[in-house]
């Protein structure tokens, strides 16, 4: 029987969970030492459960979840690849988990080595001159890059540069991060072939523009082949190139962002470097820059001393400062470092080659069944649409996505990028086998067939998931955002 009660509803007054040890010092009463106005008596509604209650509660919840370990998760631009178990073990080593951020540098040389060496590895992979692993996730990396841009132009007396050019295929975080750093957004359209043309950039680029912020490969899964020329146009007018590195999984070992004229890039370790996404974080968003921008990187920085030891420094007068406490998502960094060392340079190159091969193989499989709006060889992901199904039987991308759930697949990213109506953005990643891609193609064709023959079944999907279609409108109209004890 389905027990959908919350923790609080399973609570039994007087039941105890995990008690702290018997006190080895005299217990003192807060009321003897603090003013009565400061003392809290009780935490109303807080749950009271036993250990076995909790084990069953969360085990049951986990069974309602779909993860990469459950099945294929071709969520475009999210790079949901296999998360190696060994990295979880490594990040649980006491030598990493049981170290305090304010321990003296001399006691944490191993941790500083991880940070320093990971920064070196990411420099080599991206071709950038300097990397900081400080930002907490991709969006914070973007904000970091944008604030660095602002400081850089301020120091050059070019405060008038207040615009950022952003293509219409961009992730929503791009304009949001730009705005947070005080820039206004100038949208630019991708051309008919799905990429940016040099002409389009030439038209909007001016002396009041700080940067072009682009994603390469872009969110249509296409390599921005004009990037060098575009970078030249932007640089000529004194602007810089910011690259959202969300799609780095397509180019490792094949090309370097530094060679493309990119000045700033943020990476997503929870995508490309397989530190798990955790149901919405923690991520990590290192930032890579050219030598010219290095002084603006956030603090603290890890530096090498003459005697070969490492230490932290905040002595960076041009730095934008810090975006968080301490030094970044350290245990995530440990996992990314392990991932890179396990694969090596050759392995990382193989990762990107295979990711591209998988995406193209998948796209070819869908040809003829689904509309392919930008039909040419893609990088690590491809975009198809619901155009044919919608015209023929009124079945939409949303319906197709929900029906895929019934066949054991996580749906692709849907209705994104916004420039493609009814988009399904599919990223198989390199860790999916030929057989699982064949199965996804088979199922997508089957769903398309069902759309013709039995559209109602598709439109009311999912049928075999833990829940039927969920009413998100009701959730937004009458927000219930927490549990409360019924009066």
């Amino acid at each position, binding site marked *: 029987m389905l027990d959908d009660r919350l923790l609080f509803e399973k609570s039994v007054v007087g039941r105890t969970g995990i008690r702290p040890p018997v006190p080895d010092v005299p217990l003192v009463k807060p009321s003897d030492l603090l003013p009565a106005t400061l003392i809290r008596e009780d935490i109303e509604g807080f749950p009271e459960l036993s250990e076995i209650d909790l084990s069953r509660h969360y085990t049951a919840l986990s069974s309602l979840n779909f993860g990469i370990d459950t099945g294929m998760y071709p969520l475009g631009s999210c790079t949901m690849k296999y998360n190696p178990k060994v990295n979880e073990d490594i990040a649980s080593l006491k030598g990493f988990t049981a170290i305090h951020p304010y321990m003296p540098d001399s006691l944490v040389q191993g941790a500083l080595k991880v940070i320093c060496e990971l920064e070196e590895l990411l420099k080599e992979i991206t071709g950038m001159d300097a990397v900081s692993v400080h930002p907490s996730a991709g969006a914070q990396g973007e904000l970091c890059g944008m604030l660095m841009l602002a400081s850089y132009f301020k120091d050059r007396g070019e405060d008038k540069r207040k615009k950022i050019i952003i293509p219409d295929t961009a992730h929503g975080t791009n304009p949001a991060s730009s705005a947070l750093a005080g820039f206004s957004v100038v949208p630019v359209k991708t051309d008919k072939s799905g990429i940016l043309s040099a002409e389009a950039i030439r038209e909007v680029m001016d002396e009041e523009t700080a940067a072009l912020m682009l994603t390469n490969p872009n969110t249509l899964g296409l390599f921005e082949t004009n990037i060098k020329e575009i970078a030249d146009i932007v640089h000529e007018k004194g602007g810089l190139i910011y690259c959202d590195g969300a799609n780095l999984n397509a180019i490792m070992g094949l090309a370097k962002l530094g060679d493309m004229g990119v000045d700033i890039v943020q990476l997503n370790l929870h995508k490309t470097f397989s530190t798990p996404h955790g149901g919405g974080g923690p991520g990590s968003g290192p930032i890579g820059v050219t030598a010219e921008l290095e002084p603006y990187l956030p603090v603290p920085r890890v530096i090498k001393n003459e005697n070969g030891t490492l230490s932290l420094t905040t002595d960076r007068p041009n730095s934008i400062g810090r975006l968080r406490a301490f030094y970044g998502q350290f245990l995530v960094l440990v996992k990314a470092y392990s991932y890179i060392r396990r694969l090596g340079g050759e392995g990382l190159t193989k990762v990107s080659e295979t990711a591209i091969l998988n995406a193209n193989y998948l796209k070819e499989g869908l040809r003829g069944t689904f509309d392919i709006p930008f039909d040419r060889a893609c990088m690590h992901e491809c975009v198809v649409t619901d155009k044919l199904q919608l015209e023929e039987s009124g079945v939409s991308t949303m319906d197709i996505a929900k029906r895929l759930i019934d066949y054991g697949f996580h749906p692709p990213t849907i209705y994104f990028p916004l420039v493609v109506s009814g988009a399904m953005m599919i990223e198989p990643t390199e860790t999916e086998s030929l057989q699982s891609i064949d199965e996804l193609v088979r199922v997508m064709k089957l769903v398309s067939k069902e759309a013709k023959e039995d559209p109602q079944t598709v439109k009311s999907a999912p049928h075999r998931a833990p829940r039927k279609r969920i009413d998100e409108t009701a959730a*937004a109209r009458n927000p219930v955002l927490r549990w409360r004890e019924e009066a």
Partner: protein
Amino acid sequence: MNHPAELKYTKEHEWIKIEGNQAVIGITDYAQDSLGDVVYLELPEEGDSITRDEGFGVVESVKAVSDLYAPISGAVAEINDSLVESPEVINDDPYGEAWMLKVDVENASELDELLSAEEYEQYIEEESS
């Protein structure tokens, strides 16, 4: 799509009905249809003044947000409180119960620049093609 002939329209998809010295404002059938199920509405307060072409409120569905732009300038004489409570009415009855504001018209000449139903329909046709 229904766009009554007696109303005036804007390119930002608001409708305006003139009642003496007051303008009643809401959003069009086309606007509510493109938004989908409306879940939230934010309006100015009575007594606030609104300025032509500037935002005066926000209407939201689950996955879209749309700013409301003032078709004319003037002081807000009345707001539809019950619509704020039940914004889903915008989907059901955009021209009737889903009126949003009554505004004292400041400059009657601004009214001349509004679109007729015919012009508005032509505009949305161009937009969507």
